[in-house]
Structures are given as structure tokens and as C-alpha cells.
């Protein structure tokens, strides 16, 4: 297996704020790799250093075996980059924009091929200013794909998009990856990381706090399911008693609700109901879901991805 991206002991500070702190990562060729973490975790700083747009304070980055200080031109031609919050010129049409970006690259796809790839054929002659948010984001990815890159960097590609637009973008990324290319993306959506990524690095406060396949990360919780409930009145059941229920591995409290992680839903739910009955507590809400990367993040940091 060859290496597409290697980061060693990377550090970057802004004034007193440590954005990235001794971060190490290796991304293999052909995988879709996700940096998952809350806003301000250092994901964007990390990916922009990899893209050669920011200089690190210390540490080393190699992309496709090349370094930014030595082989910038080759690297620029080999990478496709989508940045957070780029506003492409409203005055240009879709095909004019793609044509402009295509002209910067020594080789690549034709304008029509790229527009077809992101399914904007019908909008090719429309001004960028008239596109929807999802269409603009697909155009941004099109501009990253024009040079037929070996590695595609995507920074929060679906933030602010409606569910249908997210799906379309996911399919686009999966198609690109299916040709054996490498994708490195950042996201704070756990479902996005679970859906797209072969491996995920969970980043918090500039460090990698967990790194594995999404499945293995969830399995590391030691539980597959989460049971949440609330009871009426101000009395709540005793944590130790809950922990003793069948299948329960952990108990935590969240905005007045209690969450149990469980290995076996079919054992835990009847046991919980019996216990509440016995304590004369009336259930007001009961939810269950399969454990997600969000639960992994919560169990590692005690905080949620969204509000961390």
C-alpha cells in the first residue's frame, strides 16, 4: 500500500492559540480519509497546511512523496482542492468558471467532462449567481476536479446543504474514489464521516484522539446501542442501579435525559422498564439508536460535536 499523505509532528499556533499540536497522520493511496471534529478543532488548519496554503510552525508534510518547499508546481498540478467558503464570481457562467480553472492546469479533463461529472449540464450556461447552494458546491468540487487530481482535498464539503444536495455530493465523492483516487475531507457531520470514509481521525483541540475505521471506532465503545429516557417528576433513578441492568455498559446524563449504552437492546429495554416500574417512576420519553461516531466523540471528550 502506498502513502498519499504523511504528516509528522505537525504544530501550528495563532498567537497563544494552539490550532494544531503534534499531529501525526498517514493517509493511504485510494482511501477516503476523514478528519472529524467540532468547529475549532484544527481541521481546517491541518488540511490547509497539507494543501500548501499555510506554513506550519514545525513538523513535516509530504503529499504523494513530494514537499511544498521543493515541488510546489508538480503538487499544485496533482491536487484538487475545495476550500471552505469560496465565493466564485457570480458574473461568470458555470462553463466559463470551469474553463478558467481548467486553463491553470497543465493537463486534465475537458470542460464538458467535468460539468457532466458534477451533473450541471443543464446549468452550463447559467450565471453562477443564479445557482442554488448545492449547485454552487458541486461547481466548487468541479473546479477541484478539472486537473484530474490524484488527491482531492475537501474542507467541509456539505456544510449548510440540504439533505438531497448532500446525497448528490456524496455520490460525486464516491465516484471519484471508485477510480482509485485519494480523498481527504474534513467534516463535523458524523453521518458524513460514517457514510464516506474508510478511516476517520477524530480531532479535538489540535490532536488526533482516535483513529480507525468508523465501524471499529463505534465498536470500541463496547456497545452497539444507545437507550435514552426521561421520567416524570424530579426523582430520577440511581445510576448504580442502572449500571447493573442487563447489557448496560455506561450511564450518562444529558439535558435532563439519561443515556445508557447497551450491548443488547432486547435485554436492556425490558430490564429498564421493569426497574422504573419497581421504583414507581413514570416514563415520559424513550428513544433508542445504534451507536454512532457522535457517541464515540461524546464518550472520548464528554462533549458533543456540534456544541463542543
Amino acid at each position: 500500500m502506498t502513502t498519499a499523505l504523511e504528516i509528522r509532528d505537525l504544530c501550528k499556533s495563532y498567537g497563544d492559540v494552539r490550532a494544531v499540536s503534534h499531529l501525526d497522520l498517514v493517509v493511504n493511496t485510494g482511501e477516503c480519509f476523514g478528519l472529524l471534529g467540532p468547529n475549532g478543532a484544527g481541521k481546517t488548519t491541518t488540511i490547509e497546511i497539507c494543501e500548501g496554503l499555510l506554513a506550519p510552525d514545525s513538523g513535516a508534510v509530504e503529499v504523494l512523496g513530494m514537499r511544498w518547499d521543493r515541488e510546489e508546481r508538480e503538487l499544485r498540478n496533482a491536487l484538487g482542492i475545495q476550500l471552505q467558503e469560496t465565493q466564485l464570481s457570480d458574473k461568470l457562467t458555470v462553463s466559463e468558471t470551469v474553463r478558467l480553472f481548467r486553463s491553470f492546469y497543465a493537463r486534465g479533463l475537458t470542460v464538458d467532462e467535468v460539468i457532466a461529472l458534477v451533473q450541471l449540464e443543464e446549468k452550463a450556461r447559467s450565471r453562477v449567481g443564479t445557482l442554488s447552494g448545492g449547485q454552487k458546491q458541486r461547481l466548487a468540487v468541479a473546479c477541484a476536479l478539472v486537473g484530474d487530481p490524484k488527491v482531492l482535498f475537501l474542507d467541509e464539503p456539505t456544510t449548510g446543504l440540504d439533505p438531497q444536495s448532500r446525497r448528490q455530493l456524496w455520490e460525486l465523492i464516491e465516484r471519484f474514489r471508485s477510480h482509485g483516487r485519494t480523498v481527504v475531507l474534513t467534516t463535523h457531520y458524523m453521518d458524513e464521516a460514517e457514510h464516506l470514509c474508510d478511516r476517520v481521525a477524530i480531532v479535538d483541540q489540535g490532536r488526533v484522539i482516535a483513529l480507525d475505521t468508523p465501524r471499529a471506532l463505534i465498536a470500541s465503545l463496547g456497545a452497539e446501542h444507545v437507550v435514552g429516557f426521561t421520567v416524570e417528576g424530579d426523582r430520577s433513578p440511581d445510576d448504580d442501579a442502572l449500571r447493573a441492568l442487563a447489557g448496560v455498559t455506561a450511564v450518562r446524563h444529558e439535558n435532563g435525559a439519561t443515556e445508557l449504552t447497551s450491548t443488547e437492546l432486547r435485554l436492556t429495554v425490558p430490564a429498564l422498564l421493569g426497574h422504573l416500574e419497581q421504583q414507581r417512576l413514570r416514563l415520559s420519553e424513550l428513544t433508542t439508536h445504534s451507536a454512532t461516531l457522535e457517541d464515540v466523540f461524546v464518550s472520548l471528550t464528554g462533549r458533543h460535536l456540534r456544541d463542543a
Partner: protein
Amino acid sequence: MRDSLRQLVLTRFREFGREPEAVFWSLAFPILLTVGLGIAFRNRPAEVVHVAVIGDSAAVAHAITALNASKAVAAEHLPDADARLALRTGRIALVVNARGANRMEYEYDETRDDARTARLLVDDAIQRGGGRSDPVAVSQRFIREPGSRYIDFVVPGLLGMGLMGNGIWGIGFPVVDARRKGLLKRFMATPMSRAEYLASFVISRFALLIIEIFLLVGFSALAFGVPLRGSFIELTLVCALGALAFGALGLLIAARPRTVEGASGLMNLAMMPMWILSGVFFSSENFPRAIQPFIQALPLTAVNDALRANMLRGAGLGVVGPELAIIAAWFVGCFLIALRLFRWR
């Protein structure tokens, strides 16, 4: 031309041409200004001076007869209060107070040019009516030659002002806007050549420049007979050098700001002194001698002087060597500093 440079230049034209306001302000506005100024300051037959006469009734009648014998004066009899109100509001330039057949008093504001003119015309008419004859015989010839009128003075100034505005705005605004939108950073993430990016502005500026010159010089020659006595090629060269200097100044102003608002403040700060001092609408010689070295060092002063020398005096490039040197120095200086300070993200 490399395809990337061609695409960047096309982008410049598209972004400019698809912004109707930009087209209006940079191309149509100077023409409208020329029309307005040409009409406001066109040479008219000498105006009649309006005056009022008050005082002793026999003397008033006598004075009015004497005054109206002159074609340059229109006199009317008014009650005292009305006459003074008319003087205060500027409807008349002077009040003649006829105190007796041979005793006149002129009431007027001696700081007003038209009032001083009225004083001379009125006195001449009154003295003639009183029987004065001139000891020296005088004849006159009127000279109204293109080249010495106000419109001839102002058109090269407007051309220079257009070069400044379009150079500073035309480069400063799109650059800062691209930075604000994250587009500069996005371009930096591609193999795009920075030199080509900057060159695309220079090329598109030159193309628009030719249109600007043709429109303004052509229009003012046709509509007002403003002369073009020098070589058109040399005029274009002066304009091109001026456009480079103002473009470099625009690039310097746009080197760092992240917002269009911040940049427009700086642009106005740079342009305002030149609008006033550099002889666009009136000669820069009007300002005190002490600040003349500063005024002469401004790029717009040098551009305006060189344009006037070419258009009005037919002077060759050799004559305006010092002006061209000042313009070139601004171009080189601003461009080098701009490249050092420029924030590509």
C-alpha cells in the same frame, strides 16, 4: 497568448461588461461631465448687467436714460427697499443712488466679480450721459480661438481624471473583492501564475483605455471642437503610462484590505487631493506657491500637464519629459511596494 492568460483576460472583460454600473461610471460618466461642463461654460455673448436706480425722481429719469443708452446695461427704477432686497439676493449687481443730477452713489459688493464689472459699465454709461468724451481713440477685435476656452482646458483634465479613477478602481476593486470572497486564496490553490493574474488586469485596462480615449477625445472634438494638436499615438502613450501608474497605485491600495469598504476609504484618500489640486477643473497654479512642489509631484498633475501639452499645444513627448519621468516613477515605486505588501489570501 497562453490559454490561462487568455482566460484571465476574458474573465476581466466579462466581469466588467456584465456590471452595467461599472460600464456607466467608467465610460459614459466622463462624456456626460463633458457635456454638462461644455454647456455650462460655453462662450456666450457678453451678458447684460442688471442694475436698479433709486433716489430723487428727476435725477432717476436722467440716469436711466443714460444707462439704457449702453447695450451692456439694463436699468430699472425700484423703490428703495425693493432695490436693496434685489441686490442682496443677487438679482441685480448694483444699485445706483441718484442723489442729484450730477451726484451718483454706487452701492455694490466690491468682492463680487460681476458687481465690479457692473460698476465699470454703469460708471462709463453715466459719465457718457453726462457728456464725457474719450481722449484716446480705441478699437477692438474679438478672438475666440479653440484651445483657449474653458472646455479646451477641462477635457484633458477629465481624460486624466478618468485614467486615475479607472486605474485605481478598475484594479483595486476587483482585487479586494476577490480577496474578500476567498477567490484569491482559491486561485493560489491552483497552479495559476501570479504574474499572469496581474498581467490580465494590465491587458484589460489597456484595452478599455483605448475606448476611453477615443470616446472622450472624439466626442469633445465633434461636439465642442476641442483641438487635438499633438500626435494621437503620443497621446495614447501618455495615457498608457498614466494608466500604468494609476493601476500600480490601485494595486498598492488593494495590497492588503480584506473588505471593499476599507479599500474604498483608502482609494478616496488617495484620489481626493488629486481631484482638487491636480488641475482637473481649474488650474493648479491657483494654489499657493509653497505647496506647488507637492502638487507638481502628484501623478495626476503630471498626467494632466502632459495631456494638455499634447492636445492644446501640440507638444511632442520630448517637451513633457519631466512629467513622463514623474509618472514613470510613480508606476515603478507603487508597483514594487505593492508586490512586497500584497496579500494573496
